[in-house]
């Protein structure tokens, strides 16, 4: 309805290969970025920033990471949280042990640690596929959390592995309030999302999707499945690692290895299922959905039903809703909210026609 594509022709391949080839989309995306970068910090209160926006952004990044692996490269992982943990503890140790370590570099190093571990646990994908591989990633999940607890060096010998993050300071500016932390998180997430989009639209991304869709054919046209999968593991884990570091530094401030448990991994998996596998935007939609749903349930179910329900009912209700949503989406719309968005957009582009 709002699209006016007539006359938006492409006279060069650069123009044709833009991320948002339609002018109206570009305008909308810029408007969105400006809104979240300039308007939100002014109007949002502490609660919104701390409890909603920052976690949504961080989980979007983690979901993005998993989506690269699962949605694009077709390798299911149940260990995302563990890779987040590696990123968090990696960044923490770089900050701790190297004097004058710049925060952003520590973030990258944390991500790289996660990437390295990710490659290690991705090695079985050489031989195994599907849920065999998923089970292999469970090994990563359990092993990493165990290792972080059992080797106190990682947490600088604090009790049961709990770490408290250092102050974030970039070029002398200290990020201590929720607003500045939000801005930092937003910047990192936007940059990495852009990089992810660039990867998936280049030959790397095509190789991922080729291996996902038909690995024998991919191999025959000269794509090395092994290398491609390991790159996917590395990139995916890097994203999860950076997300984990942000989780520790800009969201919670204090984390313990057990916080990165299997439940968190499942949560991230749910984000991409509900948001949409194989879609960058789906990662954001899914993260927002999964973060916001419990808040909505917590706030609205009791107020709707009053004293009739106990708090345990609400938490069980959450489980039911999550489980139900997953099944619902897998059955009805396996490509998740992103596909629904896509369909809606197509409808708008074709409006008033139905097809």
């Amino acid at each position, binding site marked *: *309805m709002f*699209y006016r594509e*007539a*006359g938006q*022709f492409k006279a060069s*391949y650069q123009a*044709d290969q833009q991320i948002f080839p339609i002018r109206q989309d570009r305008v909308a995306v810029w408007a969105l970025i400006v809104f979240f970068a300039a308007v939100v910090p002014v109007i949002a209160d502490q609660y919104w920033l701390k409890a909603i926006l920052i976690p949504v952004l961080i989980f979007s990044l983690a979901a993005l990471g998993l989506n690269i692996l699962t949605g694009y490269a077709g390798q299911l992982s149940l260990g995302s949280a563990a890779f987040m943990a590696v990123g968090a503890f990696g960044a923490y140790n770089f900050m701790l042990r190297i004097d004058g370590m710049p925060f952003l570099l520590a973030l990258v190093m944390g991500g790289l640690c996660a990437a390295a571990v990710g490659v290690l646990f991705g090695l079985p994908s050489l031989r195994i596929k599907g849920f065999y591989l998923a089970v292999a990633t469970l090994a990563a999940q359990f092993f990493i959390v165990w290792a972080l607890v059992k080797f106190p060096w990682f947490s600088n010998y604090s009790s049961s592995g709990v770490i408290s993050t250092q102050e974030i300071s970039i070029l002398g500016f200290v990020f201590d309030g929720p607003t500045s932390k939000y801005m930092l998180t937003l910047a990192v997430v936007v940059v990495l999302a852009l990089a992810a989009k660039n990867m998936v639209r280049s030959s790397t991304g095509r190789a991922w999707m080729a291996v996902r869709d038909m690995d024998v054919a991919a191999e025959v046209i000269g794509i090395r499945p092994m290398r491609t999968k390991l790159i996917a593991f590395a990139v995916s884990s890097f994203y999860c690692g950076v997300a984990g570091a942000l989780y520790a530094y800009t969201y919670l401030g204090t984390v313990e290895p057990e916080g990165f448990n299997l439940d968190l991994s499942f949560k991230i998996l749910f984000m991409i299922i509900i948001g949409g596998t194989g879609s960058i935007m789906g990662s954001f939609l899914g993260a927002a959905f999964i973060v916001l749903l419990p808040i909505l349930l917590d706030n609205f179910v009791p107020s709707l039903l009053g004293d009739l329900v106990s708090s345990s009912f609400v938490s069980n209700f959450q489980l039911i809703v999550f489980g139900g949503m997953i099944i619902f989406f897998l059955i009805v719309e396996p490509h998740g909210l992103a596909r629904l968005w896509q369909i809606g957009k197509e409808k708008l582009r074709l409006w008033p*026609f139905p097809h």
Partner: protein
Amino acid sequence: MADSRAQAAPGTELDTFPRLLMNHARVRPARPAMREKEYGIWQTYSWAQVAENVRAIACGLAELGFKRGDRLAVIGDNRPRLYWSVAACQCLGGIPVMLYQDAVAQEMAYVLQDAEIRFAVVEDQEQVDKMLEIRDEVPFLEHVIYDDERGMRHYTQTFIKGLDEVQEMGRIHDRNQSDFLDGEIAKGAGDDISVMLYTSGTTGKPKGVCQTHTAFISAARGGTEFDRLTDREDILSYLPMAWVGDHLFSFAQAMVAGFTINCPESGETVMTDLREIGPTYYFAPPRVFENLLTQVMIRMEDASWIKRTIFHKYLEVARRCGADILDGKPVSAGDRLQYWLGGLLVYGPLKNVLGMSRIRVAYTAGAAIGPDLFKFYRSIGVNLKQLYGQTETCAYVCLQPDGQIKLDSVGVPAPYVEVKLADNGEILVKGPMLLKAYYKRPDATAESLNAEGYFMTGDAGFFDEDGHLLIIDRAKDVGKLNDESMFAPNFIENKIKFFQFIKEAVVFGNQRDFVTAFINIDLEAVGNWAERKGMAYSGYTDLAGQDAVYELIRDCIEKVNADLASDARMSGSQIKRFLILHKELDADDGELTRTRKVRRNFIADRYAVLVDALYGGKPSCYIETQVKYEDGREGKISADLRIEDVKTFAPQAAKQAA
């Protein structure tokens, strides 16, 4: 804008197309002159690039021995390099002759012989093969130059060359004799023949219409001034190059105004390409607009009821006030608000999907356009207008001015054109855009131009009180019924064809007691209608014979009768009997011209038994017809056709029925 004004100054030296082209290359070298969708993007050629390429082709042709006054055949789809070849030919003082690219080899042979073609620039292997097929009949054909190399590697004949090669030769030639081409261009004069366009001719062999540079430049300049076209316009070139309209819009006007022409990727992507380009200036024959509207309506059938409701509600609003708003007439604020909302919800998106968002001026011509159809586009804000003209007048006689659109007229005489009516109602025109002569046909030239230098259009019409011209019919087709009342077959046929279910109609009545009609149903529209009703059918012939379809068509014809009854001059022409033909009228069978006009006399001869049955009062008639399929095979279609009577209205009863 400023530039086009400058060119329009009288007495300027820009009196030939080559000079116009070189001027654009100087004045706006970097502006896009042409775009072609190729390899997935719109490959763009600036005026400077076009000029350079045209130079190369021209010099290459010269190197091959092309001389002043030689004719160059150009055959193919709308490809930049074919337009360049036309321009290159003009640079050398030659005469380009464009042929309809879908014609079979034998049809081409006549034109090639008539124009004594020595050089042909053709699009691809398919056209080269046609040239080879008729080579013996056109021994003077010396060079065949192809644009697309695909499949050409095994053609070893020395007279076949690639345009690349010719251009390369030309570039060397141009380097060695850099003043050669400028000299050739300087030799040109406005009064030289710039192009020869063959009229498709409803009767007899095609004739080559010779038009001078001055004629086409005047027509183009008049048109650009009339509609204030600038060098920022975009036009989609998709109609055959051999057709006068394409030459005027895509070549002459672009050369005069300096705007951009856009060539679609292929025939099947025209609609997508139209949508991508979103032209600001657009031409299409009525059937294109009609097909678009039919598709719009069919696609809307599947929409949810909410959408349909919104759609129809706002179309109603548009019908009420859209055209008036477009014409700048006073409209109430409430209607304006509603129309604005409609623009947001319906017209805007609709125009967007149709690729018409940016249209400033759109023209239609070539056949009469249905009033509902015409109104529809105007009401949603597409500035669709009609024009009137012939090949002999550079498709330029009358134009509808902005803000003064009448549905049944073709507008006022265009700038520089003088129009008057003969005693028998025939339209006579005079002006710089008139043909110089028919090629090698002084007899025909003399026949078409009268003593005072007026061109006799062969159309009958009259001026209304505002000076707008109305066309009734071909002057020679206008006949009389036995009761001496006027019989204007085209006029009636057009009224019938305005119904979306009817694709073609042929009426008979001259020297008869009453009027009868052959109908071709529109397979897509009727097919859809039948599907919605749950009717099964196996093809055109089967569908056309069904009772329900007959009923549907009879309703349409009754409406036409009611309409005719309301006009005193026409009430005698109401249709009494009709039948639905068992096959679609087809140009390949000679029933239509290449421009899809019905050849009434041919059809009357071919289906004489049916005509007799219509007048003989028979309830049905058996017919068997030879047909030619697309792949050249021949076959037979036979059917037992029903003939039905239609209600007619007494002139005074018309009001109640309508």
